[in-house]
C-alpha cells in the first residue's frame, strides 16, 4: 500500500493510504479526543468531538472519517477547536438529563471524562430537561434514554460484531432514540442474544447491567477489540 506523508500539529508523519487522520495521529502518539469512535467497529463521525482543522479547507472535519492525503497539514489542538469541542460537550449535557452524581457510570463515563479534560466548567445553554423513560424490561440489562448521547456505538456493535441487529435508531433530531427491534420493549425482543456488547460499548450510563448502583458501571471495551481481532485477524491476544 502506498505511504502518504502529511503534517499533524507541525509533525511530519507517514501513514498508509486509506488510514484515517485519527489512526495516523494515534500511531504517532498524538491524542485527539473522541466519543462515538470505538475500536473494533467502523466510524460514523457522529459526535464531532474529533474535529480537526485542515489547511486550505474552511470546514472542520472529523478525524475519525477523514482519510490521509499527501501533503495534508492538520491541526488537532487549536483555540478554535477547543472552543467547538467544549460547545459540543455542553450541548450534549443540555440535550438530555445527565446527573453524574447519581449515575451508574459516574467515574467511568467517557462523556464526564471528556468534559473534565476539555475544560468544560459549566453549561452555557439552557437545559432542555426532556422526559425520557427507562427501559428496564430486559432480564439482564437496562436502557436509560436520559443518559444517551446517540453515539450509536451500541447499534454498531449489535449489527457488526454480534450481528444480531437488535439495536436501531428511530426518530429525527433531538427526538431520535435508540430502539430495540421495531421499537419494542427490550425484554420482548426476539433478536437480542443477551450478549451484552451494547452495554460494554456504551460511553455513558445509558446502557447498564440491571441492579447497577452509582458508579458501578465499568466497561470492558478491550473485549470488543479482542473479538474483532480474533474474528478478522485470527489473533487471540487477550
Amino acid at each position, binding site marked *: 500500500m502506498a505511504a502518504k506523508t502529511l503534517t499533524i500539529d507541525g509533525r511530519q508523519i507517514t501513514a498508509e493510504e486509506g488510514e484515517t487522520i485519527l489512526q495516523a495521529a494515534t500511531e504517532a502518539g498524538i491524542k485527539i479526543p473522541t466519543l462515538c469512535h470505538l475500536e473494533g467497529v467502523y466510524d460514523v463521525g457522529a459526535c464531532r468531538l474529533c474535529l480537526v482543522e485542515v489547511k486550505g479547507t474552511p470546514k472542520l472535519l472529523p478525524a475519525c472519517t477523514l482519510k490521509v492525503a499527501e501533503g495534508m497539514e492538520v491541526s488537532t489542538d487549536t483555540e478554535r477547536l477547543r472552543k467547538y469541542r467544549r460547545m459540543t460537550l455542553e450541548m450534549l449535557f443540555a440535550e438530555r438529563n445527565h446527573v453524574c*452524581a447519581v449515575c*451508574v457510570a459516574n467515574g467511568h463515563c467517557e462523556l464526564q471524562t471528556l468534559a473534565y479534560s476539555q475544560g468544560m466548567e459549566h453549561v452555557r445553554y439552557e437545559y432542555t430537561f426532556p422526559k425520557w423513560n427507562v427501559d428496564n424490561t430486559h432480564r439482564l440489562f437496562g436502557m436509560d434514554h436520559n443518559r444517551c448521547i446517540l453515539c450509536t456505538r451500541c447499534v454498531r456493535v449489535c449489527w457488526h460484531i454480534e450481528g444480531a441487529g437488535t439495536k436501531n435508531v428511530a426518530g429525527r433530531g433531538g427526538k431520535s432514540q435508540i430502539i430495540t427491534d421495531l421499537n419494542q420493549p427490550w425484554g420482548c425482543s426476539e433478536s437480542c442474544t443477551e450478549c451484552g456488547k451494547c452495554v460494554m460499548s456504551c460511553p455513558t450510563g445509558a446502557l447498564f447491567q440491571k441492579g447497577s*448502583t452509582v458508579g458501578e458501571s465499568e466497561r470492558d471495551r478491550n473485549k470488543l477489540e479482542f473479538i474483532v481481532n480474533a474474528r478478522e485477524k485470527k489473533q487471540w491476544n487477550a
Partner: protein
Amino acid sequence: MAKRIVIDPVTRIEGHAKISIFMDDSGNVADAEFHVVEFRGFEKFCEGRPYPEMPGITQRICGICPVSHTLASAKAGDAIMAVSIPPAADKLRRLMNLGQFVQSHALSFFHLSAPDFLLGWDTPPASRNVFGIIASNAGLARAGIRLRQFGQEIIEILGSKKVHPAWAVPGGVRSNLSAEGRARIKAWLPEAYATTDVALEIWKKTMKSHGREIQIFGNFPSLFMGLVTPDGSWEHHGGKLRFIDSSGSIIADQVDPLNYKDYLGEAVQNSSYLKSPYYLPLGFPEGIYRVGPLARLNVAEQMGVPKADEELKKFKKLGRGTVTSSFLYHYARLIEIMASLEFIERYMDDPELSSDYLCADAGINSLRGVGASEAPRGTLFHDYTVDRNGLLQKVNLIVATGQNNLAMNQTVAQIARYYIKDNNGQIPEALLNRVEHGIRCYDPCLSCSTHAVGQMPLHVQLIAPDGKVLNEIMRG
C-alpha cells in the same frame, strides 16, 4: 391589636425555615408556627427511576445526614428483593450509622446549640456561634470539632467519602472494613470518649443553671416513637417500632415498620412544605408524637452498653415515666454519642467486619419495600412501590423532622408565650433567640444546606391581621 411576628430565616439549623408568632389583641402570644419554606420534590422526581439507584439519589436530600437516607433506602431495596442481607453487611451498615450519629450529634451539640447555653442567650449574635466558642474555650471547640471528624472519618473509611458515600446498596454494602481503617478508628476512640465525658460534665452544669429552660423549652406531654430491639433495648438500624405515651406506658410495640401506615397519618398544612405526621389512632392533632434522641431514650428500656446505660438511668430520673422536656434532647444526644462509641468499640474486635461476603443477590420479589432506620434526628421511613421491572411507581419518605413538626410548633408557642408578653410590639433579639433555640433542640434537618457558622440576617415583622406591616426590625 392582633399582630404576627415572623422570624425569617431561623439560624443555626440545617435548612431554611421561618417562625411566625401570632399576637392577640392584648399583646400576648396567641399561637406560633414553624414553617419550612423550601420545596424539594424528591418523592415526585424519583418516580420512574430503577430502585437500585435510590440510595444514591435520596442521600442527596441532605449533606448532614446522607448516611441515614442511603441506609433507609438500601433497606427498602432489601425489602423489594425480599432478601436477608449478609450478617457482615448488616454490621457494617450499623457501624456507618453509628459514625453518622456521632458526627451529627457532635455538630448539633458543639456547633449549633452550645453557643446558646455556653455563651449565654444574651451574647451578641455576631459572636454567638462556634467561633464564639473557639474564642472562649478553644480546647473545647477543638475537641467538639474533632469528635465530629471522628464520626465523619468512620463514614469515609467505609464509604470512601465523608458526604454522599456510594456504598450501601440494595442487598448489602460494597466494601468491608479495612485493617488500616480498623486501626485508625481504634486509635481515635480514647479521644472521642474523653470529649464525650467532658461534654456530659458541661451538660450537667448546664442543667443546673438552666432549670427554667428545662421547664419551658418544649416541656409538654406527647407520645414518643422509636425503634427498639426485641427485648426493648435502644436500636438504631433494624428492630421494630415502639410507641409510648408521656406516662411511659407502651401503647403499641414491636410494630413492623412495613405497617407504619396503620399507625401514622400525614397531615398537610398550607403554611409549610413540611408534612405533619401524627399517631393515627389518636387523630390530628391529638396524635402528636416526638422522635429522635429524646424519644429513643424514652422508649428504650436500656442502651445495651455499660457507660451509656449508666447515663440512661440518670436521664430517666429527670421525668416521671418519660422525660418530656425538649431541652433535654441535648442530653439525650450526648448519651447516644456515648452509646455509639461503645458499640463502635465492640465492632472493632469483630472479625466479621472484614468478611468479603457483603451483598445478597436477588431480583424483584416484592413490589413494595419499606426501609426504616433511626437517623440522628429520629425514625426515617423510605417506602417504595415498584413495577415488575423495578422502576419506582410511588415514593413516600417520612423524615424525622416532619414527625417532630407538631412538637416544634408547640415548643415555639410555649417559649414565645413565656418570654414575649407586654412588650408593646418590641421584641428583644435575645428573646427571639430563645424561640429559635426551641427549634434547635430538635436539631431539625430541613435540607442539605447548613448554616452551621456565620451570621444570617434575621427579619422580624409585626403584621396585623390585614397583612399590614406595623413594625419591622432587621438583625445581621
